[in-house]
């Protein structure tokens, strides 16, 4: 699998993401926000966590207008895979690739801890490496992770089985405990928790490996 990790000014999980993808066996290149094109034959684009453009205006809003984001949208529209984590999730909602928006945490605090997540669907390349009913532990580190979507949109994503992960104990006020959401074609995943920070024993847990390995297995068999 060939993966590209997007780097914005203020990204800070880009290298962790690259390490996690490489550990799972991916060939990884880094792409800068000013690049208007991606390297050839990219299967997956990862949009990492951080504070792109200082979270000015709204988290992810400026990044969503950068040249590389246009290439990310084009890649997704061609049916390519995109994984957005934390700030990356915010960027993907701002581009319109994923529904809803991420608002300020309901307790107004920056939350930095490990949380338990229930894997809600196995029907995506991102979650195929898990087993039904799995509960995994990933770190969260965000101030604006409160997932918001209107009633109609919620009904639609629930009916289409597009909630990938749900918090066991909702830390941030997200609607319906939603921690991660899939696009209509199930090839774009946005999530606030950090699977790339749970891939090494040194991280305190390796629950994130299943996501990256599952993704590579799916690509290999595709």
């Amino acid at each position, binding site marked *: 699998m060939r993966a590209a990790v997007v780097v914005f000014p203020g990204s800070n999980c880009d290298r962790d993401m690259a390490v996690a993808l490489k550990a799972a066996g991916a060939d990884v290149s880094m792409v800068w926000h000013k690049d208007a094109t991606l390297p050839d034959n990219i299967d997956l684009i990862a949009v990492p966590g951080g504070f792109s453009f200082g979270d000015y*205006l*709204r988290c992810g*809003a400026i990044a969503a*207008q950068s040249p590389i984001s246009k290439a990310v949208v084009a890649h997704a529209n061609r049916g390519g895979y995109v994984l957005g984590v934390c700030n990356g999730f915010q960027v993907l*909602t*701002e581009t319109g690739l994923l*529904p*809803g*928006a991420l*608002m*300020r*945490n*309901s*307790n*107004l605090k920056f939350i930095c801890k490990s949380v338990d997540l229930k894997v809600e669907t196995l029907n995506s390349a991102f979650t195929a490496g898990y087993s039904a009913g799995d509960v995994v532990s990933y770190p969260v580190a965000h101030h604006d992770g*409160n997932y*918001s*979507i*209107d009633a109609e949109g919620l009904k639609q994503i629930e009916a289409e089985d597009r909630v990938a992960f749900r918090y066991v104990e909702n830390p941030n*006020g997200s609607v319906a405990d939603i921690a991660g959401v899939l696009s209509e074609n199930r090839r774009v995943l946005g999530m606030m928790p950090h699977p790339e920070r749970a891939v090494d024993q040194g991280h305190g847990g390796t629950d994130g490996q299943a996501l990256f390995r599952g993704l590579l297995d799916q690509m290999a068999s595709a």
Partner: protein
Amino acid sequence: MKARVYVMLKNGVLDPQGEAVRHALGSLGFDGVEGVRQGKVIELDLADGTTEATVEQMCEKLLANTVIESYRIEVL
């Protein structure tokens, strides 16, 4: 010319920051504050002849996230 854009969370979208401000006003002794909604004001310095329709496009594309926010444009 100048334009001023007011961006507010849509009605029905919970505003945790506004709620915190409301609580703080209550603890300062200001009774009867029944609701606070916090928004943004963005001032634009524009070349003469820029149309309001163009400012509207700016709002739709960047200044507001219309999933959760509404906006109002004032041409000064």
